């Protein structure tokens, strides 16, 4: 019995263990930031590796907690992202006073996400959600002296609190109409009556807020810009990914009876999101803000994928998130490096970047191409499958608009490439020497971006797992 518990909850338990370990380290004698960073990264690596071992599926605490291979995989993807982020952020953390706290915050957020992913019950889900939100707000404020940082944190905490209260209102209605909070018991009790639809809309809004779907995305850009790069990348990859995973499972399982309704909602929302994201991304100059809007557009495309059939949809979304982790983190990695070493965060600063930093330029370019969905980078496959899953429903108007919107997204990604390669700049960013950890992280991402598409096994594996839902 206990062995089962240990095995089923291994990732969560490991996280808890790590959190406490770090806290105890803090209690212990004073250490240098370097040592903290290295220790934590080693731990994260172990965590990642261990994540792949001895995973099995099952339920605990009468369906409060359930897990299966897909969820394990999802969690592993997240912990991989976590590892990469922590490696990248080392440059910035070295100079920071509160290294352990930072990790404690992020890790507890991760813990919340893991619980959220394998939640089998609305209460559990809510707890996970909050656990994954509140520490993030604190983390967003981690540049304690920066005005923007605290403003970002403020916006994050308030709007997330607001959204979660609406979410709760929805949940309360679900509870009221069905009398149950357990995922497995809700579907049969769902009839298409207005109150439930309204409840669903509130829940949808809660999710939409977390994955920043228009018009619930307003916080995104500001928080991304204000928060430290590490937190931004965490927000854009890990928390978004986690919520996406939950979102698809909830949609496909719990709210299956309402499919007719939510398909059309997704239709509207995704187009709205893609267009808004693109339109705003065009004229951004701050790199983080630019990536914020571009990621909004990405989410729009993801919604297209979700609107497809359950298995294909799930597979394509999980696959895309994996690719997204690599490509987005590659981009953020370069930005983190540059802003950490020079404090420059504007696209215009990157003019003539290629003259001084060819390697970084290529990595950034490849990352951007992958985000834009240009072959041979993995992004191409990701986006292709997303749109493709969407097309499966036969709504080709939808697909056409989405596909044509890719032109705009191409424009702004290529705009950055143009700045890097073509524009003249009297004083470009000086040549940077890349420390070990970020270097590893960047290489990992680049390799990932270039190979994931070609390793047939990965997609096929994900697709095989996706049947579970």
């Amino acid at each position, binding site marked *: 019995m206990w062995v089962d518990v240990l095995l089923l909850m291994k990732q969560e338990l490991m996280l808890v263990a790590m959190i406490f370990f770090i806290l105890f380290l803090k209690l212990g004698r004073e250490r240098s930031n370097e040592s903290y960073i290295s220790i934590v990264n080693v731990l994260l690596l172990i965590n990642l590796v261990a994540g792949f071992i001895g995973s099995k599926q099952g339920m605990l605490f009468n369906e409060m907690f359930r897990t299966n291979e897909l969820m394990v995989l999802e969690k592993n993807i997240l912990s991989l992202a976590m590892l990469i982020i922590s490696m990248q952020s080392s440059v910035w953390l070295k100079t920071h006073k509160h290294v352990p706290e930072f990790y404690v915050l992020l890790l507890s957020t991760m813990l919340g996400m893991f619980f959220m992913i394998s939640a089998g019950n609305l209460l559990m889900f*809510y707890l996970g959600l909050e656990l994954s939100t509140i520490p993030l707000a604190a983390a967003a404020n981690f540049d*304690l002296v920066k005005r923007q940082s605290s403003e970002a944190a403020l916006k994050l905490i308030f709007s997330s609190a607001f959204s979660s209260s609406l979410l709760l209102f929805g949940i*309360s209605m679900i509870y009221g109409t069905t009398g149950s909070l357990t995922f497995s018991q809700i579907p049969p009790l769902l009839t298409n009556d207005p109150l439930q639809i309204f409840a669903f809309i509130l829940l949808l809004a809660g999710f939409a807020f977390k994955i920043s779907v228009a018009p619930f995305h307003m916080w995104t850009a500001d928080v991304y810009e204000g928060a430290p790069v590490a937190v931004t990348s965490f927000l854009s990859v890990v928390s978004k990914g986690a919520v996406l995973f939950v979102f698809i499972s909830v949609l496909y399982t719990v709210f299956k009876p309402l499919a007719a309704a939510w398909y059309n909602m997704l239709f509207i929302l995704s187009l709205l999101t893609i267009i808004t994201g693109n339109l705003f991304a065009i004229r951004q100059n701050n790199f983080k803000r630019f990536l914020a809007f571009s990621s909004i557009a990405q989410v729009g495309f993801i919604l297209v994928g979700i609107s497809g059939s359950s298995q294909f949809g799930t597979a394509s979304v999980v696959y895309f998130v994996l690719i997204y982790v690599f490509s987005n983190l590659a981009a953020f990695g370069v930005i983190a490096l540059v802003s950490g070493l020079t404090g420059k965060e504007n696209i215009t600063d990157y003019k003539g970047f290629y003259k001084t930093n060819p390697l970084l330029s290529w990595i950034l370019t490849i990352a951007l191409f992958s985000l834009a969905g240009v072959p041979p980078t993995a992004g191409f496959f990701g986006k292709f499958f997303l749109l493709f899953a969407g097309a499966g429903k036969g709504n080709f108007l939808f697909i056409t608009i989405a596909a044509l919107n890719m032109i705009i997204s191409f424009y702004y990604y290529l705009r950055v490439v143009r700045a890097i390669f073509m524009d003249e700049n009297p004083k470009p960013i000086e040549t940077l020497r890349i420390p070990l950890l970020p270097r590893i992280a960047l290489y990992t991402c680049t390799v990932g971006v270039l190979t994931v598409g070609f390793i047939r096994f990965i997609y096929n594996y994900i697709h095989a797992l996706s049947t579970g839902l």
Partner: protein
Amino acid sequence: MYDVPLSHVLFVSTALFFIGMYGLFTRRNMITMLMALELLLNSVNINFIAFNKYLYPGKLDGVFFTIFIITIAAAEAAVAIAIIINLYRSHKSIDIESAAELKF
């Protein structure tokens, strides 16, 4: 003792909800906005309790949920206030208007 029908209670909670929302939209003092948020959460709590008591008296899901919400609301408030204090350090004000530099 059941002479107060469910609809009334729901009415109260909904009213509370919208009052909270109104507060959130209009108040400029961050602390007040925080209080408005608490109102929102409390209306949800009332919902849960009411549903539990009137519709599904057999189980206690609603009640538990409420307890969790209360605790989490506390945590949220704590972090929010911490952030506000930190913001006050830099902005010398807790007026929400002053925290509008990140835009467009």
